[in-house]
């Protein structure tokens, strides 16, 4: 019987033939942790009796969640991570390098790999045909020591996206639409494979947005089969040699196949406070906005900043809005500088912050106050996610976010681009 991508990749990592439902122990190719939980993972490893990480070349530590540090305790945690990385000869990405997932995708993730990290959005790596999934800090302690972990081989839901989206309807709109259809627990414990011509047409950056939000439907991970675009992306980041083809077998068995048309789609937002609370922008365009955030591992890449700059070029952010723009990595930042995207955004009145998570996790650099409304290109709009439990977060594409920054209310980008 044929295999899904999840079954293929876990079979390789476990060194035997496995299928959905099996519980396996698999070797880890890449283990990443960050300043949100890395110190807990290190302490767990030490409490378990571990002294050295199993393979320093496979372990990466990123300081991105509160970077640069905003609190003295966080600074202590950063130092704990720096010291550990130094002692263990593990690569450390210090403040300003970028968001952990973006850095792993640029520098380390290869098709076919099995990666774990202490972060739920590790599922993003499926955009390159790798199996990435989030684990907790204690489990990471065991991984650091043993280089192995148990997995239940997930069943897979195939989501076929056909057609081509109208202009200014972006991958983020598509994935929010999908989340609205599937629901916040519609894919729990399962993997998602995205297929269809809309996915084949999509850039790797857009595919990362798709896979990034797999966990928002409860999924263990999300995948896009590799193709020429994957190869070109790897070549661009200087790692073409790690390309290999990752596709499901034609006779693979799926838990479910969901077919969705994106032809007639329009810009959407996920309204407070669940990701599947999705509505057309037009339905909520009277909502006034206090803060706009363009960034995060979901939408902080060059093409996201490009579309925002295109909308804001030569115009001014609305006086009642704070617009915060954060490139996902130093590479993205430098490319955006070169293309004068940063200049356009800054001239329009955006606040440009150093590469990192920024306000996405509600710790610093744009924490929302009581009653405030934020339009954010990130992936979660939960109660209390970005600050006060009384604040409201609307998830949107970078085009919708930029259009909303311009008008001061939630705005369909098609309304402003040619104004």
């Amino acid at each position, binding site marked *: 019987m044929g295999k899904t991508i999840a079954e293929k990749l876990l079979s390789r990592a476990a060194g035997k033939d496995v299928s959905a439902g099996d519980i396996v122990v698999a070797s880890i190719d890449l283990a990443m942790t960050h300043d949100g*939980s890395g110190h807990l993972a290190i302490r767990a490893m030490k409490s378990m009796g571990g002294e050295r990480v199993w393979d320093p070349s496979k372990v990466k530590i990123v300081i991105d969640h509160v970077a640069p540090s905003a609190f003295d305790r*966080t600074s202590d945690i950063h130092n704990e991570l720096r010291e550990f990385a130094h002692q263990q000869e593990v690569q450390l990405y210090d403040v300003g390098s970028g968001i952990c997932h973006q850095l792993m995708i640029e520098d380390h993730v290869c098709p076919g790999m099995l990666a774990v990290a*202490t972060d739920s959005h590790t599922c993003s790596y499926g955009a390159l045909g790798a199996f990435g999934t989030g*684990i*907790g800090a204690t489990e990471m302690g065991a991984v650091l020591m043993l280089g192995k972990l148990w997995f239940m081989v997930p069943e897979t839901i195939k989501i076929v996206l056909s057609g081509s989206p109208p202009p200014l309807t972006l991958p983020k709109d598509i994935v929010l639409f999908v989340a609205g259809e599937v629901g916040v627990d519609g894919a729990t*414990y399962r993997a998602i494979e995205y297929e269809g011509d809309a996915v084949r047409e999509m850039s790797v950056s857009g595919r990362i947005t798709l896979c990034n939000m797999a966990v928002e439907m409860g999924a263990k991970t999300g995948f896009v089969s590799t193709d020429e675009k994957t190869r070109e992306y790897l070549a661009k980041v200087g790692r073409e040699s790690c390309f290999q083809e990752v596709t499901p077998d034609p006779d693979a068995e799926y838990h479910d196949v969901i077919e969705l048309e994106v032809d007639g789609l329009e810009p959407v937002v996920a309204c407070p406070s669940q990701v599947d609370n999705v509505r057309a922008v037009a339905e909520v365009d009277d909502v006034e906005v206090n803060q706009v955030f363009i960034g995060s591992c979901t939408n902080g890449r060059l093409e996201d900043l490009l579309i925002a700059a295109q909308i804001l070029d030569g115009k001014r952010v609305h006086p009642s809005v704070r617009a915060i723009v954060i490139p996902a990595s130093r590479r993205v930042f430098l490319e955006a500088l070169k293309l004068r995207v940063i200049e356009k955004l800054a001239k329009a009145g955006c606040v440009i912050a150093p590469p990192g998570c920024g306000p996405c996790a509600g710790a610093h650099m744009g924490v929302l106050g009581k009653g405030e409304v934020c339009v954010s290109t990130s992936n979660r709009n939960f109660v209390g*996610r970005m600050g006060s439990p009384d604040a409201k977060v609307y998830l949107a594409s970078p085009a919708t976010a930029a259009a909303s920054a311009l008008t001061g209310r939630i705005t369909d980008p098609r309304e402003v681009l040619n104004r």
Partner: protein
Amino acid sequence: MSSHVFRGRVWKFGDNVTTDEIIPGRYRFKTDDIGEWAKHVLEGADPEFPKKVRPGDVVVAGKNFGSGSSREPAPLVIKHAGISAVIAKSFARIFFRNAINVGLPVVICEQLPDVTEAGDVVEVDLEKGMVRNLTKSVEFAATKIPNFLMQILMDGGLVEHIRKRGGAVWQDIG
């Protein structure tokens, strides 16, 4: 009662309780003092909860409990607040793994949440895999979880488990 039987007063929650409701980032990043975190446990879902919860109480919830982030402080802070077990119709994947790894008993049961109200007294028998609502005099079987996970839970979490056994039982799955 054996150490794997818990009896306690119920706190009732609905579907999709998120990790940001359990312990939001604005507290989590400022400190790593779990006592501080525990002062805000589940505050996003019920602002009065941290003040009213008593050691031994049980959380009963609907579907997809613990959805969202991989933050382990979520189950940890519930355990620290003295909650003896969480019974839900289903759990988010990472929360479920984390709960077992930190030794917070998590029990999957479709039926019990529907017939249970806040303030009821429930009993969980981990070893037998049974849950009972003593107030309503009903009893249900919990969904079975693999033996090796039960062993980690009964050892009190993954750290204690590895210390006690010199490794994780799952290493032998092969």
